[in-house]
């Protein structure tokens, strides 16, 4: 594996062009509708140069920076599942003709995806989805294909205040250590704007070879480490994870769930912005003539009443039970199911909750004021 290299802002632009030439559809952060989301980009100017965000529980604003940093903001409302695990997806299509029904699975669109600007929390979120969707016994074919092809350019978190982030608590950041093809650390100083590049795969190395690059100096590496350490030190939220799953499961009837339910609107925003929420609903859509029908899946949320509709009734009628399902899945039962938390500490659910419910606070309240975990595994 090559040692650390330096590219400059032009090099970043060439990276985008190069990935496109290699057949990738390049997706990166871009400013739209007052938020930094992810979309198809074709040049450096599509990136939110000189923008940053201000986040807090229930609050998100973008504003201009003093400098021209390209990646000087935390994660926004989008996550990469939007592209790896899109919604809706046609699972199969059936056509009726004189000989009866003929079913086939629509081909994938075949696009290879390159993600530019994947934060460490989101790399971990992709690894979480890998465990859910690829580990079997059944594999999601559409995710598997997109995931296999995807080229990941990580960005180390630096030059912003991570107000709603808590990746340090979950060990998922802010430093991206693996799971990427290339990782960039932005160094933005008055005279020199450049990126330290780490190589994470042979694919990444091959791409880097084609870009103008030079070896990183020890001072560059030190500056990069300082910037990442600064982000880690200024983390705005934290979550005590030791013993948390057992503590939550021992307190499924804690009165605090009712308190949360008085605020929760069951809008499902948290599940929409969550980079690991994967639940879907499948339904059949038939054309007017009845000659073709499609089975379509779209992302669903455990906050809807219909989510648990079984034999004529919904099993989770109260908002209390639906919030509890979501939080305990992320922070407790997920661990038993998949050997990892379903939360990566990205903080999106805190920022985008319209009433500012903060899961780090709610989980801590339940765990610290509830019954001890004796008797519950």
């Amino acid at each position: 594996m090559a040692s650390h290299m330096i590219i400059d802002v032009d090099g970043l632009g060439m990276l985008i062009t190069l990935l496109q030439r290699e057949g990738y559809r390049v997706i990166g952060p871009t400013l739209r509708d007052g938020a930094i989301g992810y979309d198809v980009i074709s040049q450096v100017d599509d990136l939110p140069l000189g923008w940053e965000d201000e986040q807090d529980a229930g609050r998100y604003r973008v504003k201009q920076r003093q400098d021209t940093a390209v990646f000087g903001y935390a994660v926004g409302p989008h996550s990469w599942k939007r592209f790896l695990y899109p919604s809706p997806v046609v699972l199969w299509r059936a056509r009726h003709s004189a000989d009866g029904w003929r079913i086939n699975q629509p081909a994938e669109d075949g696009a290879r995806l390159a993600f530019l600007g994947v934060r460490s929390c989101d790399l971990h979120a992709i690894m979480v989805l890998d465990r859910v969707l690829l580990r079997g016994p059944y594999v999601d074919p559409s995710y598997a294909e997109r995931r296999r092809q995807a080229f990941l350019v990580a960005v180390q978190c630096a030059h912003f205040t991570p107000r709603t982030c808590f990746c340090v608590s979950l060990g998922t950041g802010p430093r991206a250590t693996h799971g990427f093809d290339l990782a960039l650390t932005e160094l933005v100083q008055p005279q020199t704007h450049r990126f330290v590049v780490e190589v994470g795969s042979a694919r990444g190395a091959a791409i880097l070879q084609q870009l103008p690059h030079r070896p990183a100096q020890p001072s560059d590496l030190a500056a990069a480490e300082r910037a990442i350490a600064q982000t880690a030190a200024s983390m705005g939220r934290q979550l005590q994870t030791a013993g948390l799953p057992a503590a939550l499961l021992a307190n499924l009837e804690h009165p605090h769930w009712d308190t949360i339910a008085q605020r929760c609107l069951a809008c499902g925003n948290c599940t929409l912005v969550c980079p690991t929420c994967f639940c879907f609903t499948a339904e059949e859509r038939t054309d007017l003539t009845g000659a073709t029908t499609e089975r379509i899946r779209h992302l669903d949320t455990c906050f809807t009443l219909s989510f648990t509709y079984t034999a004529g009734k919904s099993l989770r009628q109260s908002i209390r039970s639906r919030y509890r399902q979501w939080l305990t899945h992320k922070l407790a039962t997920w661990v038993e199911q998949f050997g990892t938390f379903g939360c990566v500490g990205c903080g999106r659910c805190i920022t985008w909750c319209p009433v500012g419910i903060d899961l780090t606070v709610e989980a801590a309240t339940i765990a610290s004021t509830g019954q001890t975990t004796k008797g519950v595994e």
Partner: protein
Amino acid sequence: MDHRALTTQVTGSPFVPLPFLVIGRRRETRDTVTLRLRSLCDATLHAQPGQFMMLSVYGIGEVPISISGLPRRPGELEHTIRAVGSVTRHLVALHRGDHIGVRGPFGTGWPLEAAYGQDVLLIAGGLGLAPLRSALVAILRERWRYRQVVVLYGARSPADLLYRRDLSGWQQRAKITVYVTVDHPDPSWRGQVGVVPNLIRQVTALFEPTNTVAMICGPEIMMRFTVRELQKHGIPDERIFLSLERNMQCGIGLCGHCQFGPFFLCKDGPVLPYSRLAPYRDIREL
């Protein structure tokens, strides 16, 4: 609805149903039929008692239905279906020669091997007899492997009793004991009236609690009271197996709808030992 010949391009996708032919249909009750199906492309398919399949009516939707019998030959399936929603109403209306889509088998089966050499209690409420029937048929095929075999079955009324012909056949076999009770008798009913848990105390002489495997399927409340009664008679939690129902949509552990505590019932269940469910026993709306 046209249910004629149907082909599937074999894709390997676990979401794509495979074509099956309806080879038999038997009406069980006013709203329930048993369908026999044969695969048109996979003659080796073998579903275990307790597992379920996703049955698909094109243009309407897909539902999870458990195996209710053992196939006479590989590649065949037997399902008992009650018309309660739009998909099941279409399934119940199918006839011999129709084609439907099927995915599966999915989920865990009844612990038949764990019950070798043991007394076996099969306890069913309502349509819950359907998944247990497959276990019973398997047990009867290898009756010598088990000690006492007791079937306890509760239904709403005599007209709602499933498998009436089978039941009388089973009752006449000396080597299994069948007790049936109904909630609402009709004038011709000379049998027991009451709930299933009441039947358990009537058969205590037939089983040795620590060498018994109990398999239960029925409405949640019926299972709750049945478990309590079994516990009262000394059957350990890890020997009590329940088949749970939730809205399995994908059947393969990906859609999240059937979650119950740490379980996706489509892959960790539907059959689970009570010892694993007990921590969540009293949690409402889990």
